[in-house]
């Protein structure tokens, strides 16, 4: 009778030193972030004040129908910014991902530098936060929704560029090779074979990008890049917490609605 294989000996020194490093890093982070129980427990007074001013959020004596429509208009502008920015981001992100994917269009030694350049550009767009892009575009094109749209576009290029490239790299390349064997060009092989095979992943990533853009576009107004964020910030500045709560509620409904819609569309695409 064979004895069962022995468990691998646990590398206890590695586990202990990893745990110690984790604890030290956590303490260092909490100290650096100014975490204070004292402040946390002394805050109820301020919290009660905030809640008193914030509720009821929709008091007809304080919030007019006109104001509500103005917020709705700003919310729609937010969605428009998110959608337009995502569309542009998907188009440019897709083009860059074609260049950046390994073993796709630019895999020969001659075109390798282009692939490295595209990869680096995507990494740069992805690593700089969208709020920073919004500040840059407010400086470049001025205050308003256009700056926000451009910020979302650049952020989406980074997001889609990376994930589109991964989707296309993971696709089985034998059908594309078969097409090249019958005289098709590399471009034909990619568009007729790799992209159809990667399509569900590409669509799912695009829907995620739109969800992400809607969440981002809400906040971009705070730096002057249009949308509902601008309204939210000015209401907080004037301590109109009740109106701010209306906007927070509207944002909640919008984000949840977009997420549910996107989840539904994604599941339909993945199942077919």
């Amino acid at each position, binding site marked *: 009778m064979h004895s069962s294989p022995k468990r691998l000996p646990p590398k206890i020194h590695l586990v202990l030193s990893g745990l110690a490093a984790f604890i030290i890093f956590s303490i260092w982070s909490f100290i650096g972030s100014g975490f204070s129980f004292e402040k946390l427990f002394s805050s109820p007074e301020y919290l009660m004040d905030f809640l008193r001013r914030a509720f009821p959020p929709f008091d007809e004596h304080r919030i007019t129908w006109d104001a509500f429509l103005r917020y709705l208009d700003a919310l729609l502008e937010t969605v428009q910014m998110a959608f337009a920015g995502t569309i542009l981001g998907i188009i440019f992100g897709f083009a860059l991902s074609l260049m950046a994917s390994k073993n796709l269009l630019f895999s020969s030694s001659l075109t390798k530098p282009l692939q490295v350049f595209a990869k680096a550009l995507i990494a740069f767009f992805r690593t700089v936060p969208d709020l920073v892009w919004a500040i840059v575009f407010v400086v470049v094109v001025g205050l308003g929704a256009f700056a926000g749209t451009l910020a979302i576009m650049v952020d989406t290029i980074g997001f889609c560029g990376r994930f589109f490239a991964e989707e296309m790299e993971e696709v089985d390349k*034998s059908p594309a090779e*078969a097409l*090249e064997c*019958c*005289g098709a*060009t590399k471009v*034909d092989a990619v*568009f*007729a074979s790799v992209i159809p095979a990667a399509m*569900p992943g590409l669509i799912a990533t695009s829907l995620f990008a739109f969800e992400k853009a809607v969440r981002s576009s809400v906040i971009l107004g705070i730096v002057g890049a249009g949308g509902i964020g601008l309204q939210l910030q000015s209401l907080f500045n004037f301590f109109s917490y009740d109106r701010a709560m209306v906007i927070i509620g509207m944002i909640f409904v919008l984000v949840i609605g977009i997420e549910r819609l996107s989840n539904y569309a994604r599941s339909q695409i993945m199942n077919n």
Partner: protein
Amino acid sequence: MRPVKWFYVSIININNLSKSYGSNVVLSGVDLKVDSGDAVSIIGSNGAGKSTLIKCALLLTKPSSGTIEVFGQNILNLSHSALRKTRTEIGVVFQKHNLVPRLSVLSNVIHGSIGAANNSSLIPFSAMRSWIHATAPESVRRQAMDCLKRVKLEDFALKRADSLSGGQSQRVAIARALMQKPKLIFADEPAASLDPISGKAVMDIFFDLCKQENITLVFTSHNVEQALQYADRVVALKQGKVSLCDLTNKLNSEDLLSEYA
């Protein structure tokens, strides 16, 4: 019967072909001549170099030394575009059919015409209409339906390729090769992944079509009975060298089985 061009009779003429991957010698001094309209079977045990020989003949892998003439031209000296042009006249059927899974059967067959569409026009991306069946020109769709009819799959045209059985998929791959109107077809173990009945059905269709249209056929196989039944000539490879090359009517299954010893 298709007339043979007067300046060459041999469709394939391989001389002293060698291929090594590092210190691993896969092919060594292989000579092979295939005449127009011939059906040649290449047999040999795993690692004997059968698939590498086909890959070299298509220049999917570059040989270490030797010459490869296909349709009378040394393919090692061809430019990228000239090689693509040559490949449009060569059908290839793989062991794993290599269809695009999410596309329709018809789109997959139409893909066989992409190379020819590129050759017939100087405009870049002129073949883009043939990427999917919905945008393909009417004449191309009709031709693809005709190819599907020849492999008896016309009723499956709008089904997705990943909904087909192994045998049906291989027949679609044959239809895609026929769409090229090829003079030569390479088939790398076309029936190896199929059960015996589907495998025989696929080989029957394949062989009949090649004979009817005078297409030269080079196929690799592990099945000696298949080699004897469908080929005019059998070439055996052993450790990268040609160990036997003879007409099928002079061989029996024992002769071929001894090549696996």
